[in-house]
């Protein structure tokens, strides 16, 4: 994790592709005239940027782990459609089904990204030389661990709720207070483990358990209409974690990607929720 990401030259081109894609996806001109021909190439551009970055990462390495990386990426791609199959409950309206299918997919995304952020934070923690282990690296490790586990737990709980494995619950006031208390405790312990590296490993385990509990609390303690909002918050947190990973990996590309994700999440959280696929307006949410 501490190794430099020596691909920022390619990263600039990828960033230009991504910005062009976001420009195309946000443009309203095509939609008003009934012609959305600009949107599909925009997704192609995003995909090309991702592919470009992956290929350049694999290309600039020494080559020993490249087959493993390729196999893992392919396995992930194959596993995605299998895991994200959504079965709706009988008797629900088609609109509701589509909306919950999207939310279920989004919670799967938060599960995956949360897990990988937590795992990367963990490797940073174990991998680090003790003398190169400065406070900023420690801070990044602890906070990405915390964010990752929190996001993973919240996504898992939301996925279980949306797929009817858990009973529907409505939030109580005590539950919110308890969640805030757990959050405060976790932040305090994370701060302690940054300040006192001698006890850091024990504190990290406690923080991870607290984050699991916090994720469960924050996902179970929301009404179902606010599920999308919780997912948006966690997407923003993932963006912050990506920016921090970019700081550790010395990659301006990841830093700016994290900033873009945080901006998108902020923009989303300020507004109402409406998916075009579900063709719903905010009146029936």
């Amino acid at each position: 994790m501490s190794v430099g990401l020596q691909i920022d030259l390619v990263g600039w081109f990828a960033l230009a592709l991504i910005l062009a894609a976001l420009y195309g996806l946000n443009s309203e001109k095509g939609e008003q005239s009934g012609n959305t021909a600009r949107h599909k190439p925009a997704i192609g551009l995003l995909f090309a940027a991702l592919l470009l970055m992956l290929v350049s990462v694999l290309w600039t390495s020494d080559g020993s782990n490249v087959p493993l990386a390729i196999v893992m990426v392919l396995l992930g791609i194959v596993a995605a459609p299998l895991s994200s199959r959504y079965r709706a409950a009988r008797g629900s309206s088609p609109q509701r089904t589509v909306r919950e299918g999207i939310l279920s997919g989004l919670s799967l995304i938060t599960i995956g990204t949360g897990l990988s952020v937590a795992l990367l934070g963990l490797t940073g923690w174990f991998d680090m030389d003790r003398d190169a282990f400065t406070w900023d690296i420690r801070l990044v490790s602890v906070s990405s661990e915390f964010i990752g586990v929190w996001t993973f737990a919240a996504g898992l709980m939301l996925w279980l709720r949306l797929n009817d494995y858990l009973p529907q619950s409505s939030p109580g006031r005590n539950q919110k207070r308890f969640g805030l208390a757990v959050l405060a405790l976790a932040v305090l312990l994370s701060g302690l483990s940054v300040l006192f590296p001698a006890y850091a490993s024990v504190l990290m385990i406690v923080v991870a358990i607290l984050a699991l509990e916090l994720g469960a609390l924050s996902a179970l303690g929301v009404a179902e209409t606010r599920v999308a909002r919780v997912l948006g918050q966690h997407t923003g947190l993932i963006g912050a974690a990506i920016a921090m990973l970019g700081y550790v990996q010395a990659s301006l590309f990841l830093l700016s990607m994290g900033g873009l994700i945080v901006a998108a999440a902020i923009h989303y959280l300020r507004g109402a929720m409406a998916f075009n696929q579900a063709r719903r307006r905010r009146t029936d949410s």
Partner: protein
Amino acid sequence: MDPVIAAYTVLLAVALGLSGFLRGDARRRGRGLLMAATLSGFIVVAAASALVNAVAVPDLILTSLAVFFSAQAATTAFSLLWREICSTHQARGSVPGSDRGEDTSA
């Protein structure tokens, strides 16, 4: 990396993103969330770069799991965004009210 440069970059990216997303349709913020999810799929790049630089066996296991899960998340995000765009196409062309309720398996 210099923390000041990092802070500048993040600040500029957030400002650029905020001003860019403001151009979007205000009624359709669900797509904004899907775009954020798609962008967060780019964590597969960070995971892959950690994997190709890993040496010890525990590191290899942890980072390859990270690559697996992030690739899965990225694929799901791309497929969701693609279906959203495709349904925009259909919604423009078809009568309002004809729902695509069957097409929910991603």
